[in-house]
């Protein structure tokens, strides 16, 4: 294995240093990690999942099952990357995985000895005893052995980004079909985005020699496309998923090592591309062959060997056996021979389809027909292969086996919308199913075309896709690529005849090579057997001798032909059972090289046609996507947008401990009030009860309701009546859901005959708003009502306490805030100097209190004005914890009681409604269970055990009742009441037990406590409301 002195698409003037398992190596710009490793003579790159067998590089693309590496360290540690897609960067540090202590000597290689017992699904059959929890013991070791690389445990220091993109035509793939489609669509005048996962454009054209005609065609096309402003060419970008609405999920990776997070640059970018039409030109992936020890390092896809040679100038072997069942691999054979390798083709067919023998002869390539590869010899690197031939077995020494078992179209993305791929018997492969409007396919993904055909197809798809988007400028004829016979090799397409009949016989032969392992393997049901297939069966016995060793189907997950046979024997026959039972296709490569073989093998075993066994479902992503890329910018302080009230900065500057609620940041308590929340809230409660406190209530939902029918509307949406609310007065209101359960509560003030101002809870603000609009748009469009959210329009604060009126008067000396001018539930709306004030006398705390609303831009100013004017009256701020405690003392319900399960009657509010009818939720509120005597209703509870404390979430029982089950109810909210010097609580308690004066036990087994309390009125303080009136 060596790097050639000339050729390839690497830049020899830009050497790059990197390390692999600590060993320093050099590659060039334009290399992948895989090509650089090969150029440095590295064959052994990893260990397999289960048996820890030595593994080398199989492919040159994202389908790679073996060459998984970990890059980076610390927070940048990234496991399981395919070396075949990692762009080489200077200073890159790569490590092999799943081996200990080293890649060369892996202790778990011993698993191979136990292989006979570790067949598919063995763990379902054992590890069940001796005790019930025995599995936990075994599992510990199994988990340690599983997994590939190790993840970092530190936060990722790099940045990610998201961009929203739009296009008329999105084209996936930049091979001949994709480029041709892009040119046609570009000429038609469409906005085109061409997406290529590789860092170079060209797709399969990149595997042709640089001095070939196709290379010239490629550079010509790229030059033309570069000159089109309406065509954007994206490299290093993977279309990982196609989602409804023609939204393509793309991830763009930053080029080799250039992303600098300090500069704000993103390592990877999620692109959400909304395309009017999509052209899938995603090509095809070559299938490997299945034979004994087909996983040995040095066994490589024929197309990959050609790519390493022509694109990266790495000759991956000097004595090469090309094992194939189709013509396409001849191309690799010829190129390798031209580069100086000694090449033998082992063709399983009687004759290649095209006349290739003469070409082979001219290049000095030996062709052995009817030659089946049966076994690979060598452990850490292949040394020779055994071939099964009509005349007997032959052994051919080699250092590279280039294999080709035909091609599978890359249909993945086409099936993400739920369109199942369809099987084409004639070419024995799956092609895209019937796609929806605006989605087109071109090139190899359709099932085997020549390069000329791909160009033609791409051109047509480009024209059709543009026309679908209404871009229909005249388009020139496609730029053709006429390859001469000799340079083009077996066909004028790199895919060659690959997708034409032949692969299946070979696929099944993967089993024939090891009849002892697969005695009952049969061929899939097909019309007309070929004589070749009959012949190969005759070689079974001999094959058995040749093929000692495992024949892998899913090389990454260590699933063998034997495992498939076992799954069949045990009845795991449908393709999904097969996959789940054997773990086939479950690896990081998602079975890109194994699914088809498994499917046809199962079809053979069951004597069915392939599609009868099922098709595998392709799910996004096409290749794995970093979670960081999906989250993009929405991490850290951008995780969610935060809502701040106009007084936010004041709170923070004045010692508030903030608490998030519905994305609002609210003062929980002020550190100036106490050391911790428990000390602080009691101090803040005392202050409100004794002097006055100021609270920021800007987070309340606020809705402006206007119109001739506004009163009628509110009368319907609230359970209690609003039609007769006088102008200038406020009323507490409660809304139900349609099912009769309480939805939300708040107050609504009548500003004018046709104008109301509604407040809702902070938590339900958006839901209430949307519900009101729903009712107007869908149920009562005849009502002339306008509802508009004004939540962020107004700053709001509540000044509460005995001194609140004096403070208000001091802050706004010109306002008449006397009890007569502004009684309880009254409104004062005035332009006060430059401030439009809306003052509503409302109380949640039970003290005399005023809610002051002012335009948000003036909120902080008014707050400070109140604080200043209130200082002599003992005014200080208080937070939500104190508010929650004050309302408990007053028996006001809030979130813990309005929990989506309680009715008006449960909450003791049915009196508010009286005999009204015609409100939302009225009818279903009459459901029979809602009057069940066992149904809990709101009560007050007062602890009478000295030194003991009530706890939220305690379960309520009758005294002497055994403490088990669900009890009679629970405590919903609790507080220490400084006014009563007692622990008091609100609870929901079965109606039959909710007798005032009754003793109750509140059990909190989680803290090992049961406290006795008495059922009392939920209004602990000032039941007549004297403190808030007057």
């Amino acid at each position: 294995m060596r790097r050639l002195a000339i050729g390839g698409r690497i830049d020899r003037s830009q050497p790059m240093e990197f390390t692999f398992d600590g060993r320093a190596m050099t590659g060039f710009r334009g290399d992948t990690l895989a090509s650089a490793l090969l150029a440095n003579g590295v064959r052994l790159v990893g260990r397999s999942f289960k048996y820890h067998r030595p593994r080398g590089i199989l492919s040159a693309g994202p389908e790679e099952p073996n060459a998984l590496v970990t890059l980076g360290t610390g927070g940048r540690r990234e496991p399981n990357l395919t070396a075949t897609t990692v762009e080489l960067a200077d200073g890159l540090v790569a490590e092999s995985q799943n081996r200990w202590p080293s890649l060369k000597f892996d202790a778990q290689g011993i698993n191979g000895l136990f292989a006979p017992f570790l067949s598919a699904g063995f763990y379902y059959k054992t590890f069940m005893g001796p005790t019930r929890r025995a599995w936990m013991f075994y599992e510990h070791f199994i988990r340690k052995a599983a997994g590939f690389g190790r993840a970092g445990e530190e936060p990722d220091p790099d940045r990610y980004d998201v961009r929203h993109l739009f296009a008329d035509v999105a084209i996936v793939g930049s091979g001949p079909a994709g480029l041709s489609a892009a040119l046609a669509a570009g000429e038609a005048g469409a906005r085109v985005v061409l997406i290529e996962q590789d860092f170079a454009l060209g797709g399969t054209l990149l595997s042709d020699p640089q001095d070939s005609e196709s290379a010239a065609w490629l550079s010509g096309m790229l030059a033309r496309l570069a000159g089109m402003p309406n065509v954007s060419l994206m490299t290093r970008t993977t279309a990982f998923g196609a989602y409804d609405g023609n939204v393509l999920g793309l991830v763009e990776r930053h080029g080799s090592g250039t992303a600098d997070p300090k500069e704000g640059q993103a390592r990877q970018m999620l692109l959400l591309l909304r395309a009017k039409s999509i052209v899938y030109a995603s090509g095809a992936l070559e299938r490997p062959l299945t034979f004994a020890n087909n996983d040995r390092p040095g066994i490589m896809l024929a197309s990959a060997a050609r790519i390493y040679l022509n694109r990266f100038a790495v000759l991956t072997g000097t004595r090469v056996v090309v094992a194939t069942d189709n013509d396409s691999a001849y191309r690799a054979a010829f190129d390798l021979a031209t580069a100086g390798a000694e090449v033998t083709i082992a063709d399983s067919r009687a004759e290649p389809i095209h006349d290739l023998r003469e070409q082979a002869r001219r290049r000095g390539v030996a062709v052995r027909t009817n030659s089946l590869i049966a076994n690979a010899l060598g452990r850490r690197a292949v040394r020779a292969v055994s071939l099964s031939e009509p005349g007997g077995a032959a052994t051919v020494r080699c250092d590279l086996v280039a294999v080709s078992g035909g091609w599978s179209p890359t249909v993945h993305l086409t099936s993400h919308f739920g369109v199942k791929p369809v099987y084409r018997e004639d070419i024995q492969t799956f092609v895209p199913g019937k796609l929806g409007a605006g989605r087109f396919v071109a090139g190899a993904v359709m099932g085997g075309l020549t390069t000329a055909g791909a160009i033609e197809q791409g051109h047509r798809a480009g024209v059709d896709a543009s026309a679908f988007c209404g871009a229909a400028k005249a388009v020139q004829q496609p730029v053709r690529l006429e390859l001469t016979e000799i340079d083009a090799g077996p066909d004028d397409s790199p895919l060659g005849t690959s997708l034409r009949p032949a692969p299946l016989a070979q696929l099944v032969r993967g089993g024939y090579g090891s009849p002892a392992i697969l005695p009952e393997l049969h061929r899939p049901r097909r019309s007309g057997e070929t004589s070749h297939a009959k012949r190969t069966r005759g070689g079974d016995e001999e094959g058995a001798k040749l093929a000692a060793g495992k024949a892998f189907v899913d090389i990454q997950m260590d699933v063998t032909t034997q495992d498939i046979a076992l799954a069949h024997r045990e009845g795991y026959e449908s393709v999904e059972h097969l996959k789940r039972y054997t773990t086939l296709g479950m690896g990081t490569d998602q079975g890109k090289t194994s699914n088809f073989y498994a499917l046809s093998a199962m079809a053979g075993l069951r004597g069915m046609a392939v599609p009868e066994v099922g098709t595998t479902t392709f799910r996004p992503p096409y290749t794995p996507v970093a979670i960081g890329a999906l989250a993009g910018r929405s991490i850290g302080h951008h995780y969610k947008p935060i809502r701040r009230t106009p007084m936010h900065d004041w709170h923070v500057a004045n010692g508030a401990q903030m608490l998030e609620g519905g994305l609002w940041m609210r003062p929980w308590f002020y550190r100036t009030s106490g050391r911790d929340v428990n000390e602080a809230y009691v101090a803040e409660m005392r202050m409100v009860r004794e002097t006055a406190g100021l609270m920021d209530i800007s987070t309340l939902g606020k809705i402006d309701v206007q119109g001739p029918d506004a009163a009628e509307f509110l009368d319907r949406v609230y359970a209690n009546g609003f039609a007769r609310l006088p102008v200038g007065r406020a009323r507490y209101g409660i809304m139900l859901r349609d099912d009769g359960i309480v939805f939300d509560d708040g107050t609504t003030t009548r500003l004018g005959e046709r104008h109301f101002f509604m407040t809702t809870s902070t938590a339900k603000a958006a839901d209430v708003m949307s519900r009101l609009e729903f009712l107007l748009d869908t149920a009562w469009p005849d009502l002339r009502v306008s509802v508009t959210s004004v939540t962020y329009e107004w700053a709001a604060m509540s000044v509460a306490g005995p001194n609140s009126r004096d403070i208000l008067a001091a802050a706004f000396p010109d306002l008449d805030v006397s009890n007569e001018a502004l009684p309880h539930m009254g409104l004062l709306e005035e332009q006060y100097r430059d401030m439009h004030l809306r003052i509503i006398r409302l109380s949640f705390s039970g003290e005399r209190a005023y809610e002051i609303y002012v335009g948000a831009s003036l909120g902080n100013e008014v707050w400070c004005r109140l604080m200043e004017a209130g200082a002599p009256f003992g005014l200080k701020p208080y937070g939500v914890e104190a508010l929650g405690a004050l309302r408990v003392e007053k028996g006001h319900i809030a979130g813990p009681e309005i929990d989506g399960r309680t009715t008006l009657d449960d909450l003791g509010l049915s009196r508010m409604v009286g005999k009204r009818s015609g409100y939302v939720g009225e009818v279903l509120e009459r459901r029979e269970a809602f009057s069940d005597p066992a149904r809990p209703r709101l009560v007050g509870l007062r602890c009478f055990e000295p030194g003991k404390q009530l706890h939220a979430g305690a379960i309520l029982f009758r005294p002497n009742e055994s403490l088990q089950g669900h009890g009679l109810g629970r405590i919903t909210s609790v507080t220490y009441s400084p006014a009563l010097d007692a622990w008091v609580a609100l609870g929901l308690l079965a109606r039959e037990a909710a007798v005032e004066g009754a003793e109750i036990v509140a059990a909190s087994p989680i803290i090992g406590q049961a406290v006795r309390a008495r059922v009392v009125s939920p209004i602990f303080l000032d039941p007549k409301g004297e403190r808030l009136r007057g």
Partner: protein
Amino acid sequence: MHGYSAFSILRNGLTGQRHWRRAWRSPDPKSAYDVVIVGGGGHGLATAFYLAENHGVRNVAVLEKGYIGGGNVGRNTTIVRSNYRLDGNTQFYEFSMKLWEGLSRALNFNVMFSQRGFLLIANSPGELDTFGYRANVMKLNGIDAELLDREEVRRMVPYLNFSEKALYPVHGALLQGRAGTARHDAVAWGYARAADAYGVDIIQGCEVTGFVRQGERIVGVETTRGRIGAGKVGLAVAGHTSVLAQKAGLELPIESHILQAFVTEPIKPLVHHVVAYGADHFYVSQSDKGGLVFGGGLDGYNSYAQRGNLGVVREVAEASIAMMPCISRLRILRHWGGVMDMTPDGSPIICPTPIDGLYLNGGWCYGGFKATPASGWCFAHMLAKGEVHPLTAAYRLDRFRTGRTIDEAGAGPFTWLQ
């Protein structure tokens, strides 16, 4: 039943795995059965098993339109827990938990039930209060529960985000130590194999296209493999309950919604427990194979397409990094969607229907997997004895009419918010 054991593994290992037999037969349907169960998912297969095992009813067929275990039993995030607070749910899920604990041995099939503990993280003091309520209910019903403070949580799961600046800081957690995960496919296979051994016919590729009536009574089903008579018909087709019920003329309060699930590439052990967040939709565990399995909330609109939308993918990714910053560099290998029967209170329906001969097991929302054993147990009881099992007494269809709903989330009759 040919037993599974270390010995049989050894014997087969030495003889080329040749002596394993089919885990379940592949019979042609008979003309009639005592009980026909529609739906070869976890619940249907479990029902068949318990009909045979507990009640001696063995003339039973399970009809599956595709392959067994192809629905939600094979699409979920495999979490098993019993930390419910509402009367009806608490006992039912705990009964299920007890069955899980003996399931592998009962079935002679390792379902890999792994009791690694379920941590529900509280992100606010209020949430910790409600977890306290849950924990109390659990304790009072004989279920293990612990309430952990922030430092205790940190010691158990240090890789979570413990930053003071986090939008949703860790305030504590509710731990159920006996909760954990199981190998989802194995549950379907294990029940199928065990039921088959009792003579139950598991018929795959057999879609029910209609119901056979005699007067008002349902006496069989029409299928793609012909008419099959039945003494009783049990529906266990969660996700598609409405579609089948409609064929029987049964109206239901069920809507179908998509819940997505995600798995990362396999990595060496990182997450031992099952961790879930209360503040945003995110829950995660690590499979034995090494992938982190996680999920979020519903896609949010009626759907029968077994695929999810990209918006939810992004939301779940955002939440996952917020809660577990080191997850950022891991890569999602696959994401998929399951079709959930969502009910207006988030709880299931197991009951006789107003149609004679037809019994319903559905509406599992996203509680279906963990309920599998108890669901099968109780549904079998109903089919065998014609009476409702006490543990599913609350899961009546008429509860929406009477108001006896069991709404853990308190979200009300908006199925997509449950």
